[in-house]
C-alpha cells in the first residue's frame, strides 16, 4: 500500500507495519521492493493532496484505531468535509508541492553529449526544470576531467558524471578530495562493446590478446565492465590488452583510423560507429550486467548545504525526467528533443535506435532490445560498493576501504527515498541489493570477500 492511497479509507492502516513505513506488512514491503520502478500515479496534484491529507489525518488521530472508528461512524465524505472546514487542504497541498523556494533559481548543469545524459538534457527542452521552478542552462562540456574541474570550481552547480566519479572525487582519487554526492542515477544499461568491422570473425574475447581498446575515463563503469569482461575470459586487462582513455567523440574517428580495435563506450557513440559503417556491436553492456548503473547526477556537498531547496528541486526535476524517460512510448519524442546541435548534436536516427532499442547491429541484422538503455533514478548504495570493489581490484584504491561508509556518504539513497515518497513515487525499501555480474552474484555485505574471489586482479 502506498502513501498515496486514500487516507479517508477506514480500512487502511496509516501506521504501516513494515520497516520503511509505507506498507501494511513486511510481506507487502518486500513485494513492493521487488517492483522497484517508479510508476507515477495519476496527476501530480492528486498525489500531493493525498500526501498532505494523510499527514493531517495522522496528526489528528495519533491512534489509528480512533481514526478508523471516527471514519466508520461519520463516513469518509463527511470527514473530508469536516477536515477541510478547519484545515485548508488545498492551500497546504500547494505549499507542499512548491516545497521550499529555491535559494538560487538560475542554475548551470554540465553534461557530456551522450545518451546517458538523457534525463539531464531533456529536462531542459521538455520543461522539467521549469516545472520545478528552476531556470537551468544545460552546458555541453568537452570531457570528464573538464566537467569535474568545472563542477569543483563552482562554474556548474551540478553535473552529469560517470557513476564512479563522485566516489573518486570524494576519496581524492585523481583530484583533491572534495565531498560530492549523488542524488540520482541517470541511466542503467545503455553501453556496448563495439569492434572494428575487420574483427567480425573474432567474437571470442580469448582471441583479443594484444588488441587496443578505448574507454571514456579511468573512473568509469566502462573501464570496470570491460576489465571485468576481459578478466572473466582469462585476459589480464593490464598486460594482455591496451586500454586507453579516449573522449567519446574521438572514439569513432580513432576506430576509423585503425588506432584502436574497439571500445566499450557510452551510447550514441556505439551506434554512431555502426551508423557510419566503421564497427559492429559485439555485446550490449546489459549482457554483462543487466541493470548496471552508468552515469550519475552529482553535486558537491557544499552546494547541497548552501542551497538545499535548489538541490531538492533539481533532484525532483531529474527524478521526474527519469520517470518520463523510463516509459518506452516517450522515447521517440525524447530522441527528437535531444538531437539538435544545442544538445547532443547527433542524427535523430542514431538516437532513436539507442533509445527505442531497435537497432542495426553493424553486421547486417536488425536487433530489438527494449531495455538496451533504461532509466531508473534510485542511487543504490550497493552500486557504490561494487564500484569500490573494482577500484580496489584494479589498484585505484590502495589500502583499506570502509565500503559502507563511503557508499552511504556519496550515494544519497535515504534522501532520494524521502524525495521520491514526497513526489508520490514508490522508492524501493532498502538501499542495498544484490545483483549478478556475468552470472556471479555480488553480496554488498561482503565486499572484501568479493574482491578476494577474483583470480585476475592487480596485486595490492
Amino acid at each position, binding site marked *: 500500500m502506498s502513501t498515496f492511497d486514500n487516507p479517508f479509507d477506514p480500512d487502511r492502516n496509516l501506521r504501516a507495519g513494515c520497516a520503511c513505513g509505507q506498507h501494511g506488512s513486511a510481506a507487502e514491503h518486500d513485494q513492493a521492493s521487488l517492483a522497484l520502478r517508479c510508476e507515477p500515479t495519476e496527476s501530480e496534484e492528486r498525489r500531493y493532496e493525498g500526501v498532505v491529507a494523510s499527514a493531517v489525518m495522522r496528526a489528528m488521530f495519533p491512534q489509528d484505531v480512533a481514526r478508523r472508528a471516527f471514519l466508520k461512524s461519520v463516513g469518509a465524505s463527511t470527514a473530508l468535509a469536516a477536515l477541510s472546514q478547519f484545515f485548508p487542504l488545498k492551500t497546504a497541498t500547494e505549499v507542499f508541492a512548491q516545497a521550499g523556494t529555491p535559494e538560487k533559481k538560475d542554475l548551470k548543469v554540465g553534461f557530456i*553529449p551522450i545518451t546517458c545524459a538523457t534525463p539531464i538534457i531533456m529536462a*531542459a527542452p521538455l520543461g522539467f526544470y521549469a516545472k520545478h521552478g528552476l531556470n537551468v*542552462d*544545460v*552546458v*555541453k*562540456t*568537452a570531457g570528464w576531467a*573538464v566537467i569535474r*574541474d*568545472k563542477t*569543483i*570550481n*563552482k*562554474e556548474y552547480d551540478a553535473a552529469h558524471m560517470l557513476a564512479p566519479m563522485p566516489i573518486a572525487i570524494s576519496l581524492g582519487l585523481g583530484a583533491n578530495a572534495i565531498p560530492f554526492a549523488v542524488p540520482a542515477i541517470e541511466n542503467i544499461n545503455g553501453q556496448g562493446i563495439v569492434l572494428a568491422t575487420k574483427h567480425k570473425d573474432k567474437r571470442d574475447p580469448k582471441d583479443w590478446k594484444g588488441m587496443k581498446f578505448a574507454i571514456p575515463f579511468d573512473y568509469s563503469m566502462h573501464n570496470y565492465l570491460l576489465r571485468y569482461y576481459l578478466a572473466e575470459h582469462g585476459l589480464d586487462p593490464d598486460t594482455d590488452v591496451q586500454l586507453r582513455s579516449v573522449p567519446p*567523440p*574521438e572514439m*569513432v*574517428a580513432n576506430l*576509423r583510423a585503425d588506432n584502436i580495435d574497439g571500445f566499450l563506450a557510452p551510447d550514441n557513440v556505439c551506434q*554512431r560507429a*555502426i*551508423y*557510419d*559503417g566503421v564497427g559492429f556491436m559485439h555485446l550490449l553492456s546489459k549482457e554483462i550486467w543487466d541493470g548496471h548503473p552508468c552515469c550519475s547526477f552529482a553535486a558537491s556537498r557544499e552546494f547541497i548545504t548552501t542551497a538545499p531547496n535548489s538541490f531538492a528541486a533539481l533532484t525532483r526535476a531529474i527524478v521526474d525526467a527519469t520517470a518520463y524517460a523510463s516509459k518506452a512510448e516517450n522515447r521517440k519524442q525524447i530522441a527528437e528533443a535531444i538531437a*539538435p*546541435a*544545442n*544538445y547532443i*548534436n*547527433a*542524427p535523430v*536516427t542514431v538516437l532513436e*535506435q539507442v533509445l527505442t532499442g*531497435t*537497432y*542495426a547491429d553493424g553486421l*547486417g*541484422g*536488425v536487433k530489438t532490445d527494449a531495455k538496451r538503455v533504461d532509466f531508473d533514478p534510485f542511487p543504490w548504495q550497493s552500486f557504490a560498493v561494487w564500484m569500490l570493489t573494482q577500484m580496489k581490484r584494479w589498484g585505484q584504491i590502495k589500502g583499506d576501504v570502509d565500503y559502507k561508509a563511503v557508499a552511504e556518504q556519496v550515494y544519497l539513497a535515504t534522501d532520494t527515498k524521502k524525495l521520491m515518497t514526497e513526489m508520490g513515487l514508490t522508492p524501493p525499501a532498502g538501499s542495498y541489493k544484490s545483483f549478478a555480474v556475468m552470472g556471479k552474484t555480488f553480496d554488498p555485505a561482503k565486499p572484501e570477500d568479493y574482491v578476494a574471489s577474483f583470480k585476475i586482479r592487480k596485486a595490492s
Partner: protein
Amino acid sequence: MTTSSLRLRAGVVSIVLLAAFLGIWHLATRSTGTTAAMSPEYAKLMGLTATQGKSAMPGPVDVGAQLWEHLKRPFYDNGPNDKGLGIQLGYSIARVGTGYLLAVLVAIPLGFLIGMSPLLSKALDPFIQVLKPISPLAWMPLALYTIKDSSISAIFVIFICSIWPMLLNTVFGVAGVRKEWINVARTLEVGTFRRAFTVILPAAAPTILTGMRISIGIAWLVIVAAEMLVGGTGIGYFVWNEWNNLSITNVIIAILLIGIIGMLLDQILARFTRMVTFPE
C-alpha cells in the same frame, strides 16, 4: 616587367592553383565506394557512408552549401550550446584580444626595463629561456586548478603564450638601439624618461611591433586549442562540437574561417609595423 603585370600574373596563378585544388578535391570525394547488400529495414537505420558508400570526406560543393547556410544567419542563438558562427568568432576574438592586450601591457614596459639594464637582462634571462618554450596548453590544467574559472583560464593561457615574443623582441629592440643616438641624447643632457620615449621607443618600435605580430599569430593558434579543451563558446568549441557529430563539413568551414581571421589579425599588425618603420 612592371609590378602591375607581375601582380596580375601572380593573381592568375593563384586562381589556377585554387581551381586545381578544388577540382582535385571534388574528384577525390565524388567517388562512391562499394557497399554490401543489405535489407531495406537495416539500410534505413544506417548512414549514407554505409548505405551508398558515400565518402566520409565532404566535397567542395557540400562545404560551399553549408558555408552559405552559416553566412545567411551568422548570429543565431539556440541556447547555450548552439550559437551562430559570428557569435562564436566574436567570443574567440574577445578572448584573444583581452589576453593579448594584457600581455602587451606587461611585456612592453617590462621589456623596456630589462633592455635598458644589462644587469636585469642577464639575471632574468634563464627564467625567460625556461618559460618561453612551454606549450601554452600545458598551462591549462594549472590555470584551471588555481584560477578556478575556465574563461579566465583561457585568457590566461593567451596571455602567457603571447607575452614571450613581445618581451624578447622589446628587450632586443631596446638593447640594440644605436649607441651613437643614445650618446647624442646624453650630450644634449636629455633626461632618462625623455630619452626613453623620444629616442629609444621610436628606434625600437619596428622590432617591438614584429614581436607583437608574432604574438598575435601564436595567440590565435592557441585560442582554438584552448577552447576545444575548455568548451562552452568560441570557434574552438564549434570545431569540437561538430567533431562530436563527426561533421567534417563544418570542421572544414571552421578551419577556413580560422585561417581568414588569423590572416586579418596579422595584416592589421603588419600595417602598424609599416607605420613605425623608418629608413636608416
